[in-house]
């Protein structure tokens, strides 16, 4: 695969696909699954490139041979048994080569599919990903309820460990697509399916919903944060804790505002009365890099803007506008920022 790719200089690739190659790129595999897909891409690319060259060559040759001079009348074709037979063989051979080529492409596709699907490890990390309009619910299920981690939009995974992803959707069809990691997977409502991947390069990879799912489909991003096993376990232990107790008076007031306004109708903060599962779990919201499904950075200003008028940032989003008094808004933002 890499030998095939190295024939094209990197800067040309970057021009063809201007997204940040390290974070969101089909041709920069960070996991074995994406490497298989990339291999398939290059095999088909070079086969079709060869076909293209041959087609152009045949076209040019035919054009050069059958040149007709303007003032001369078209020749009257006479029946020529020999030429007919030759042409018949030519068409037959081209047909045969086409069928063989398509068959080769079919075989490599099936081989790639098998490679991407197969998993032999008995000890994977299991993640349940549920699509919502327009965010991703991420749960690390465990038979012990209090050992289950729930977060949103940021998927932490250990490097070098198989990860099994169980999928489902809450409303419409979404599609999980992190091109550096594996191919697209549809999340279907009422239909639980599964796939797996194993990342071998630590880093933050970007993903995007790849099946049109409504107004804010384009603002339904997520990130996969691949980290060392120890970092992952530390993160998991941190996420298992209840919400941090607010320490400043402003944050304490913020919790009060959170629990007496619309916030608690949809969000969970474990350790408080807020326990609804409609919106993302906010127990450790300050530990995330982005909010609103990779739409805004997780800063005080962005949080405040999002709380007051999410419909301006993502029109049609399920979160309702919250016309809070300025003091209350500052307090809520301070409280949310204390939830590490």
């Amino acid at each position, binding site marked *: 695969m890499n030998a095939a790719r190295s024939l094209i200089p990197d800067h040309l690739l970057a021009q063809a696909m201007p997204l940040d190659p390290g974070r969101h790129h089909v041709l920069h595999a960070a996991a074995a699954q994406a490497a298989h897909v990339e291999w398939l891409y290059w095999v088909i690319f070079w086969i079709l490139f060869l076909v293209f060259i041959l087609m152009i060559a045949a076209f040019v040759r035919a054009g050069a041979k059958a040149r007709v001079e303007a003032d001369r009348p078209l020749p009257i074709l006479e029946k020529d048994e020999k030429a007919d037979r030759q042409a018949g063989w030519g068409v037959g051979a081209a047909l045969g080569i086409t069928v063989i080529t398509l068959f080769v492409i079919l075989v490599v596709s099936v081989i790639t599919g098998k490679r991407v*699907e*197969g*998993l*032999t490890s*008995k*000890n*994977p*990390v*299991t993640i349940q990903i549920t699509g919502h309009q327009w965010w991703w619910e991420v749960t690390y299920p*465990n*038979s012990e309820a209090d*050992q289950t981690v729930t977060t949103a939009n940021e998927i932490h995974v*250990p490097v070098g*460990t198989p990860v*099994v992803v169980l999928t489902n959707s809450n409303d419409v069809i979404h599609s999980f697509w992190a091109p550096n990691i594996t191919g697209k997977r549809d999340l*279907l*409502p*009422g*239909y*639980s*399916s*599964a*796939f*797996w991947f194993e990342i071998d390069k630590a880093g933050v990879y970007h993903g995007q919903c790849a099946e049109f799912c409504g*107004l804010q489909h384009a603002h339904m991003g997520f990130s996969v944060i691949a980290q060392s096993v120890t970092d992952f*376990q530390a993160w*998991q232990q941190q996420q298992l804790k209840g919400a941090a107790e607010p320490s400043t008076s402003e944050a304490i007031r913020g919790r009060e505002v959170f629990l*007496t*306004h*619309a916030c*608690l*109708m*949809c969000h969970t903060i474990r350790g408080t009365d807020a326990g*609804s599962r*409609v919106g993302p779990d906010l127990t450790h919201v300050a530990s995330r890099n982005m909010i609103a499904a990779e739409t805004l950075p997780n800063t005080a200003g962005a949080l405040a803007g999002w709380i007051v*008028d999410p*419909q*301006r940032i993502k*029109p*049609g989003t399920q979160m*309702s*506008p*919250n*016309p809070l008094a300025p003091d209350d808004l500052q307090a809520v933002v301070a409280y949310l920022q204390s939830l590490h």
Partner: protein
Amino acid sequence: MRRVLQFVILLGAMMAVASCSREDRILRQPPSANDTLNTIQISGLNPGANLIPTPPSSNMYQESAYAVAEGQKLFEEYNCVGCHAHGGGGIGPPLMDRNWIYGSEPGNIFATIMQGRPNGMPSFRNRIPEYQAWELAAYVRSMAGLLPKGVSPNRPDQMNVKPSESSTPEQTPTGITGVPEQPK
């Protein structure tokens, strides 16, 4: 004869055009102001006329299938089903019959949601924005058959006597042997 035919065709076309009003979907809902504060009643006794909140122009929620479907979704998400079931009632009164303890107008239902009622109905004022309360009121009315059939949503999936066609047995990844263990 021909004139009559022309007239009939023209009339038919006019009627068809009139039925083609495009539904508006409101993307930026008006933020809840404090307008309803004055209309929230503490008791049945109040000076002057008996005020019930006036609903926004009726086609905004009552005649929008989208708004009623949103109401259906909220009915579940905000756990109205916890007491009212899917309209059949339980801890709270049933909503799909003809008996209305506090009135069947959208404004009555809005007030019931926002103010709460004795014997258990909590107040959702400050908890949910007004437009959602109007959506819920529209859905509640649809359960009792007070809305046109065209905007009323179907019964929720949970109430179907057989599982929906899209529900299938759970899939497991191919090649996995045994039950996945949790990382230590």
